[in-house]
C-alpha cells in the first residue's frame, strides 16, 4: 500500500513529507494523504497560457 494517511502536522506526517522520493501530498484538513511508489501520480497538465 503506497497511500498513507497521517494526522496533519504530526511528526510522522512531516517526516513522510520530507522523504526524498516522488510523492503526492494532499493536506485534507486534519488528515494528510501521501501517495508514493506505484500510487504516485505525476502531474499531467497542459497549460498553454503560461
Amino acid at each position, binding site marked *: 500500500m503506497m497511500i498513507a494517511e497521517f494526522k496533519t502536522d504530526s511528526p510522522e506526517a512531516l517526516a513522510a513529507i520530507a522523504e526524498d522520493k516522488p510523492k503526492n501530498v494532499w493536506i485534507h*484538513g486534519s488528515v494528510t494523504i501521501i501517495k508514493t511508489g506505484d500510487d504516485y501520480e505525476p502531474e499531467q*497538465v497542459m497549460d*498553454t497560457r*503560461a
Partner: protein
Amino acid sequence: MSMTATLGAGGWEVPPIDRLENLKVDLKAIGVARSLDASAVPVCLAPNGTVATNGVVTLGTALPATYSGGIWLRLPAGAVVGGAAGLYWVVMSSTTVGQVYTAFADPATEFIPYVPAGPLVQAVGSNVGYTQTTGADITLVNVTLPAGTLGPRGMLDILADWHFNSNANSKGTKVRLNTTPFSTQTNASVVWLREFVPILNRGSEARQVGGTNGYSFSLGNHGSALEIYGTVDTSVDTAINFTASLTAATDFIVLDWSRVSLTYGA
C-alpha cells in the same frame, strides 16, 4: 406518480403534502438539476504573513480585493497561538490587513464556506512570521455528493472562480471527485481562472468522463486535450474537493466562489 393541478374557484389548488413528497421522486427521475454547493464566501490559501498578538494579520502579498465581508484564510499551524493548520475566519480591512477570529474549519469533512455566526472572538496570534505550506494540495472546499444521487447517467456541473497573484510560479488548482482530479491547472502568469468542470457517469455509477486538464473552459477545437476518465464509485457518499497548491509561500490562491450542481440520470 402523476400529479394534476386543478383550477378551483379561488385559483390553482395546492396538492396535499403527501403528493408533494411523491413529486420529489418524480423530479429526480426526469433529471431536474439541483445544487449541492453554491457558496460565494471566499477561501484563500494565504501568503506568508504575521498574526499579531491582537489577532491582526498582515499578509506579505496583497490580495486582489479587500474582503471586508470576511474570508476563510488557510494558515499553517502555530500562526495562531495553539492553533492547528486550517481555515480561520478573517475580516479584512485592506488587501493585506485583517482581523483573525477563532472561528475555525477543518475541511477533512464537508466544508461549504459560510459566514460564521457571532459573537466572534479575536484570535491570539503568535506575533511571529509564519511560512505557508508549499508543495502540497490543500483542501479549501469539500462538498459531499450523497450516495446514489447521481445515478448511472447523471452529470455534475462544477463551476469555480479562482484568483492569484501573477508571476511565473505555478499556483496549482484541482477539482477532485473523491481522490481523482478532474481539473488540474497550473495558473502561472495569470490572475484569474473561471472554470467549468463537467463530470458525467457513463452508464455506471462507478465510471466517469469529463473534466479538463490545462484548459479552464475548453469549447471548440484543440490540438490536444486530456479527457479525464474516472472509476469513482458514486453509489456511496463521495467527496468533491477543491484544492490549491503553492510552489512559493509568498503567493496566494483565492477560491472566490464555487458551485456544484447535479442532474440525476437513471
